């Protein structure tokens, strides 16, 4: 028994070194650090299904990106930054002749852990609607891409929506807005932005932390009952969102005055909360639903042909599934930009950075790829690694998310100085000379 086991382990290790490279055509290697085990698996599973389904669609229906097939491979991390670092080290040299053009981190803590390493290795870290907010400034952080919707933008869009609800920015004065946040790098990330917004609009800023994982929140919501805020901005993740909604109901705080952020607004958050979630709204840079053109294409080509990675087809179009679709589409469009510039062959990290920094997805392109309404217009530049900064608002009606608004833009004029100051402080602390993109060739 023991010999057999040892032999099997040895064989596995050997095999991994001996896998032959496929000789005929070189495909672009895309490693996916995923979490199908652990506390966050319920959100993760749908996310990976979305990414895999879209990559499969591109490979099998569209014949790859500009003819280059995508070779994607999963690695389990349990959302642990330590294990993501290990995966990163394992894949950073590429595979089967393909270098690594970019690395999806699939989690803010992992992005933090890899920030310095990836900059040294020249591999772009892609963490849409996550990452470190200051990294929007690509002059200091050339290899970090918090695409789509930074944490400052989340705060700003949330406040803009509240202003819309109460009838104008002048009505914000004197209101109390509490932020209940997951006490981690992710949860704290919006604080500087809310502080600036509170000063500008004159509302009272109450910050209430919830320690990880957050499955007991009576003290937090008792504090809310005492301080009587008008609105609650919920910046939790995983189980802490469900518990927050249920505890809010228990303490009599109305769900329709709670606004969740991106990572607190999926079916995995709303369904387990039951009636406590009815009327709850959330920011949606990735709206839920199946009414988008891409869903029709995927249904016909992938789902109905039994090729989908979704285990439960009822969850087709769930928020987390759509997160996967959007992230995959951003990667595919960036690769396409790169292939047009460098030629249709696997890109390396530096070329990957160029590709992401020149990614533009306008309305026409959104229609072509079937993402109109699901994805906002994107324009990424060397100085702006966010490239979007807007979200729609959706509300939970007890069964599904219903979109309430069109894209609401964050107040970038207010946020940019904050981001630049943060980036400059980082540059000073770490002795980085910000690059000047205007003088760069290629």
């Amino acid at each position: 028994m023991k010999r057999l086991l040892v032999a099997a382990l040895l064989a596995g290790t050997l095999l991994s070194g001996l896998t032959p490279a496929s000789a005929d055509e070189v495909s672009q290697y895309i490693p996916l650090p995923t979490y199908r085990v652990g506390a966050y698996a319920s959100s993760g599973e749908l996310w990976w299904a979305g990414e895999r389904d879209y990559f499969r669609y591109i490979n099998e229906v569209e014949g790859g990106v500009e003819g280059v097939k995508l070779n994607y491979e999963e690695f389990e991390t349990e959302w642990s930054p330590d294990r993501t670092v290990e995966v990163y080290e394992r894949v950073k040299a590429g595979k089967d002749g393909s270098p690594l053009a970019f690395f999806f981190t699939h989690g803010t803590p992992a992005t933090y852990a890899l920030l310095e390493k990836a900059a040294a290795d020249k591999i772009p870290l892609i963490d849409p609607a996550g990452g470190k907010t200051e990294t929007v400034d690509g002059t200091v952080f050339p290899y970090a891409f918090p695409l789509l919707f930074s944490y400052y933008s989340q705060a700003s869009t949330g406040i803009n929506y509240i202003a819309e609800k109460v009838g104008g920015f002048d009505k914000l004065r004197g209101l109390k807005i509490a932020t209940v946040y997951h006490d981690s790098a992710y949860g704290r990330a919006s604080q500087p932005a809310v502080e600036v917004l509170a000063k500008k609009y004159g509302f009272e800023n109450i910050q209430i932390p919830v320690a990880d994982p957050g499955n007991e929140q009576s003290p937090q919501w008792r504090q809310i009952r005492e301080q009587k805020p008008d609105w609650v901005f919920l910046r939790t993740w995983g189980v802490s969102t469900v518990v927050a909604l249920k505890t809010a109901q228990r303490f009599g705080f109305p769900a329709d005055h709670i606004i969740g952020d991106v990572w607190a607004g999926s079916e995995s958050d709303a369904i387990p909360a039951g009636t406590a979630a009815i009327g709850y709204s959330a920011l949606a840079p990735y709206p839920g639903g199946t009414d988008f053109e891409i869903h029709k294409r995927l249904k016909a080509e992938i789902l109905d042909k039994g090729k989908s990675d979704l285990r439960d087809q009822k969850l087709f179009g769930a928020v987390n599934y759509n997160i996967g679709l959007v992230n995959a589409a951003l990667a595919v469009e960036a690769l396409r930009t790169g292939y047009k510039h460098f030629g249709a062959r696997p890109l390396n990290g530096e070329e990957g950075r160029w590709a992401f920094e020149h990614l533009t997805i306008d309305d026409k392109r959104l229609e072509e790829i079937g993402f109109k309404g699901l994805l906002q217009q994107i324009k990424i530049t060397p100085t702006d690694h966010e490239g979007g900064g807007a979200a729609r608002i959706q509300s939970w009606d007890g069964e599904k998310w219903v979109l309430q608004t069109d894209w609401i833009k964050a107040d970038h004029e207010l946020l940019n100085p904050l981001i630049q100051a943060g980036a400059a402080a980082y540059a000073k602390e770490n002795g980085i000379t910000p690059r000047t993109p205007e003088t760069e060739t290629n």
Partner: protein
Amino acid sequence: MSEINLPAAAEPIDQVGLKVLTIVATLALLVTAPFLASEYWINAIIVPFLILSLAGLGLNLLTGYGGQLSLGAGAFMMVGAYATFSLQLRVPELPLPLALIVAGFIAGAVGLAFGIPSTRIKGFYLIVSTLAAQFFFEWLFLKFPWFYNGNSSATIALSRGLSFFGLDANSPHGRYYLTLGIVALLTLLSFNLIRGQTGRNWMAIRDMDTAAAVIGVPVFRAKLQAFAVSSFILGIAGALWAFAYLGSASVQSFGLTRSYQILFIIIIGGLGTIRGAYLGAGFVSLLPLALDWLFQHLFSGHVDAGLLQNIQKAIFGLLIIWFLIKEPEGLARLLSLRRTQGARRRLFPS
């Protein structure tokens, strides 16, 4: 690892020669390892394995030799990491190795303070008090921005990286040699402690503290010593984990799961043995990776990925149970049984 055997007899010359040969070969292997292994092996497997071994060693001094159960390993590692960060930030004149040592002393002092209850409470109750350290420091290092220099994310990283005395240890080789050097030094230190009066005091208390007190072992002092030395080593391991392996860290890197992981390392490896820490760290950190590689190559693409991951977890759990049933005293015992054929009795556990 020379052993004193009963009856005391000089070892045959060829055995001594063999031993010297083994030691020289091991040293040569350790020094040349970075040139044989790929960057991935160094960065993602060997360095974390060494650091986890060091942490296991630290806890083993306290739990395995001193008999004091502790779930605060993560907390003491955290103290070491944050202290190193603070020292490098605020006392930049202090070179990194000295900063590490001072951080170790700070962690040791903290361990000493949290060890005081051990004079009154024992066993499972002591676990609760060390658990308090775990929660207290997670709270402390998040609550006061001073500890993470007030940056927006509450993570810590060394702005100058791992450089000292004009040497740059940021490359994979640099990290490896730095870690190896520290781990080797502290292992040597632990060996000497264990074989001296201090170690004997600890073992006497572990085996029966009343009897130890009766024969004149200073129980109070020895227990606190164990806490201090163990936390010193854990603190340095924590600093290495944060800056030599991860690069940047937050309190989450040293959460309760880390404390459990270190405890599992010494239970699986063998309580009260030095090499148990290494064996346990190997088991806990390398086996899941090996399983992952194996599964990736055998089944990837054919079987549902989620199912595959859960099966791996189950297999890993089963292996732990199987090992512990086969040898409750850990992997170290399994090895020593094989080597000595169970015929020789040893005076000192090693």
